[in-house]
């Protein structure tokens, strides 16, 4: 196990390095204009551009520029220029909102995804299965930027069931925090609910054909026990990996759009505002931190998975 962890963390370090190089290339090398000009923003004065050029060392060699960029990022010196604000401070103070949104959505998608998947696998092809399949397909197909306006318009403005957009910190008003987040949670969770219920359903149907399930039935276990103790349990293992990958990808993906749609002032909204102004330093910070977070979560998930399923770590060491 120790060996696996060390190997996995070493792999993570390499990926982190590559990710940082890609971020450097994306922002400072690939585009076709002076980098200082781009970082300074649209309305920058020549003086500002000049000072950025010196600060970032854009006249030096590329490896030197890369090191300067990483140094700035890790010392928290990355700043946005209009207005002049430290990027990492701006990001860190918005993390609670983003985590509230993502963790809540993850709880909802796991609960409903697994529930719907379990129910439809009980009787594949039955009436319930067909209804739930329809629900899942609808959930997978509807894009967040359609779902959110529809929910907001009908449930917030027309029926006034939910408060409109915004975010209240959990520590201030727990109830407000909860009611403000219900719609965003569901918006973010709908796609995964559909997807997870399909995955669990097909996993369960596969497992149901295994010999040990027949054995369990032959022993005289009740159908309920067979389904929960044997079928469901064994079908959940692949879901763990899937969840780890999706959780990171959701925070660094759909959550940005969801935050922007519901004006939740999280990291995603910070990025969205910077995009609207075509302001690069905040996007650089969010991309780098976001990618680091995703890579880190994936490594943790792999380690947890290896702990749960010995075949993984043994297989990996045999390779």
């Amino acid at each position, binding site marked *: 196990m120790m060996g696996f962890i060390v190997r996995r963390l070493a792999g993570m370090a390499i990926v982190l390095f590559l990710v940082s190089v890609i971020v450097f290339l994306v922002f400072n090398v690939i585009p076709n204009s002076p980098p200082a000009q781009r970082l300074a923003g649209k309305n920058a004065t020549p003086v500002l551009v000049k000072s950025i050029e010196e600060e970032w060392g854009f006249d030096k060699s590329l490896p030197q520029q890369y090191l300067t960029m990483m140094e700035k990022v890790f010392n928290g010196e990355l700043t946005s220029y209009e207005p002049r604000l430290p990027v990492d401070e701006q990001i860190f103070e918005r993390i609670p909102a983003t985590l509230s949104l993502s963790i809540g959505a993850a709880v909802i998608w796991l609960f409903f995804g697994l529930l719907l998947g379990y129910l439809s696998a009980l009787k594949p092809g039955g009436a319930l299965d067909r209804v739930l399949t329809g629900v899942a397909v609808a959930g997978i197909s509807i894009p967040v930027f359609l779902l959110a306006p529809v929910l907001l318009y009908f449930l917030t403005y027309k029926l006034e069931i939910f408060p409109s957009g915004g975010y209240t910190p959990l520590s201030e008003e727990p109830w407000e925090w909860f009611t403000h987040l219900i719609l965003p949670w569901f918006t973010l969770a709908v796609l995964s609910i559909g997807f997870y219920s399909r995955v669990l359903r097909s996993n369960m149907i596969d497992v149901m054909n295994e010999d040990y399930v027949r054995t369990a039935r032959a022993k005289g276990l009740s159908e309920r026990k067979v389904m929960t103790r044997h079928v469901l349990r064994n079908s959940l293992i692949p879901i763990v990996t899937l969840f780890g990958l999706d959780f990171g990808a959701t925070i660094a993906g759909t959550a*940005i759009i969801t935050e922007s749609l519901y004006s939740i002032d999280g990291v995603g909204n910070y990025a969205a505002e910077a995009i609207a102004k075509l302001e*690069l330093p905040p996007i650089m910070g969010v991309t780098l931190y976001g990618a680091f977070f995703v890579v880190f979560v994936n490594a943790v998930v792999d380690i947890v998975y290896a702990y749960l399923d010995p075949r993984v770590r043994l297989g990996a060491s045999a390779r």
Partner: protein
Amino acid sequence: MEAVSADERGPWRLALRRFLRNRLAVAFLGLFVLIVLFVLAAPLWAEHVAETGPNQTHTLQKLQVGDETREVVSPAGLPIGPQWFEAGGKFFLGADSRLGRDEMVRLMYGGRTSLFIGIVSGLITTIVATILGLLAGYYRGWVDSVIARVLDVIWSLPVLLFGIALGVSLAVGGLKIGPLELSGGSIWVPIFVICVFTVPYMARPLRGEVLALSEKEFVEAAVAQGAGPLRVMFAEILPNLASTIIVFFTLNIANNMLFEAALSFLGAGVQPPNSSWGSMISIGEELLTTQPLLAIIPGTMILLTVLALNIVGDGLRDALDPRSKVRLEAHAGTVEPEGASV
């Protein structure tokens, strides 16, 4: 009785018959064709019905409806709502914002952009992924390692986040790689961004198929007859990939359209004055309380197009190879094609 055996009809005709028997897929193919015709009719509608362009503003203009005069944009800055045919088709869906642009005209032209980006990036992705898959799967060794590593790294990135980063960075600076030169506002920028991040999702499964196919006897036979690597890859292996590629291409267009919509919604995709369904939603969303259709209609167009492509893609998969389980991996914010199989 004259019996026509199955093999005399050829696999393509058999596949066509199987596809036509799938009524759901045929119905959604019809829907997709309607959507394409709708966006192709944009200049006709703009010129003869709406008598305006997608970017023409009508801020101070008044509209004659029967005996009534209506302002396109109210003094408070609110655009006019849907007029349907009351004003002879002008402002059929109302105006888009305080700029007073005709929403229907914008919907048709925006759809052109969305579909164009989806289809062109789908084509480029498919061609590049096929070539990479063939090279990696056929040559193996270091060629495979290099290609696989590069694809792995791109694969491990959060797609939307890096799509945004590259999209914004190029929108500000433009792009120049050798002879390829793009200005920041060009719609080729989002196409480029989409291709960079979707190629791995198609190249990896294709490489796997090429690996399996190059073990087959017909490849050995071709090599024994003296066929060179190019001949083997493109004349022997490629035809066997055709059905997989067709399915991937269809599903990829749907994925790419969602990707483009997400980028454009955030402002990292299509740049003004161009617009797409995604950027229309972000403009419409600001007036959600008073004119909800401005956000909901382009969103519905995206939903219908993507759903149609996914169902057609699934139908093609079933028709071309009933046993195959080819599928594109889902990535952040996009539709898992498998889900569309009802």
